């Protein structure tokens, strides 16, 4: 279990307990948090689950796979700390994680 703070583009914060094994994307979608579309349901096929990972957690959330890297290349407003949230698996290690959502996923 990890407490994750999802921050919408307009600053609205949602703090959610997410079960280990789910992805950061699933934590948002299943709790109806707006801002992550996840059209492909986590298959790393759509790039509509883009988030910015808080700098303090960059190391813990791991590195982008080649597939994720090349999907992200086509998302809007990509930064150093951009990730596809369906590719980040939740574990106790991620307790306290903060992710911010971009203005739009399309």
């Amino acid at each position, binding site marked *: 279990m990890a407490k994750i703070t999802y921050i919408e583009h307009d600053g609205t914060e949602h703090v959610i307990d997410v079960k280990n094994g789910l992805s950061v994307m699933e934590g948002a979608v299943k*709790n109806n948090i707006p801002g992550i579309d996840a*059209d492909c349901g986590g298959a790393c*096929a759509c790039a509509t689950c883009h988030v910015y990972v808080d700098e303090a957690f960059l190391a813990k959330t791991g590195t982008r796979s080649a*597939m994720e890297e*090349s999907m992200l*290349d086509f998302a809007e407003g990509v930064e150093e700390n951009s990730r596809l949230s369906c590719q980040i698996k939740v574990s106790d290690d991620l307790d306290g994680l903060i992710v911010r959502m971009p203005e739009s996923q399309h």
Partner: protein
Amino acid sequence: MRGRSLWSARSRSRRTSGPPLSKAWLKGEADADSLALKPLEFYAENGIDFRPGVRAVQLKRSDRVVVLSDGSTLNYDVLILATGARAFALPIPGADLAGIMALRTAADAEQLKAAIGPGKTLAVVGGGYIGLEVAASGRALGAEVVVLEREARLLARVACNALSDFFRSYHEARGVRFELGCSVVGFEGTDGRVSGVKLADGRVLPCDAAVVGVGAAPNDELAAEAGLATARGVVVDLDARTSDPNIFAIGDVAHRPMPIYDRMFRMESVPNALEQAKQAASAITGRPRPAGECPWQWSDQYDLKLQIAGYPFDADEIVLRGDPATAKFAVFHLKGNQLQAVEAINAPPEFMMGKQLILSRKAVDKARLADPSISMKEVAA
């Protein structure tokens, strides 16, 4: 103002998503929680009266009433039909034996997972994308897998020869056997359980379970019986509205216009259902119609990520980009110099730029498209 909405679903369980059934779920990589679309609390918290196990059996449009299978009725101001499609069953002897399933529900997938494993044989009837995904998952679970296909090649309805050949050799190299150009005429069983698939040439291929993936038909009977316009699905406009202004139809059940292809058709994909859901929601709440999207789909088999954008309608030329031997390539379908569709294997840039080009209808330079040393961003510039 927030209206109340009511969902009714024929299946007894929570709403689950289709795609993982043939993929991660089958391989044991997803659990029931990740398969459910939303937790049960979600419905109550959002003013949605979710009634599992209840079926809509009749539509009385003149009274704006839906009759339910428990005998009760429901009044509506606006009605959305999202009844999906159901798998075609094969009208052949033995098709109702235990161990034969169409992968439509989580229960099907559970049954299949329990029936196969090392030392067991899985027969897959139908060499389309779902059949191939099931075949890959079957191998991952350790089962022997044989795929039976009526046509002379795999994916005959949807893919070009190059792609069919690629998938065939990729699966064969991972132990899947194919019987192409064969006709399944029946199933044989012992004690009520399937034990073999019978072919027109007289052979019987032994199996412990069989998955039938031979296409689906829209659940449009409710609409048709109520006199709504149907044509291989419920006919809708660009707002997902049916011939009755108070009724919308979205997803697999809808026969919808696709302006970029200048025609109407029915699609079976999650992005299509999502796009139409947005169209209907915008129309109902009086918001502007959302911009048109390029239809797309994906399929996961082994370590392959297949992403498909568009449909190859009226295409007169195929351009291959990259080498299939490297399992990283894309097949482009063009009509003149406009892109109609792309099938991208482990090639996200080709897919993502392809999607944009299909929607923009921009002219494409074929020679540059065929040259992987020129980036897709440059090709599309």
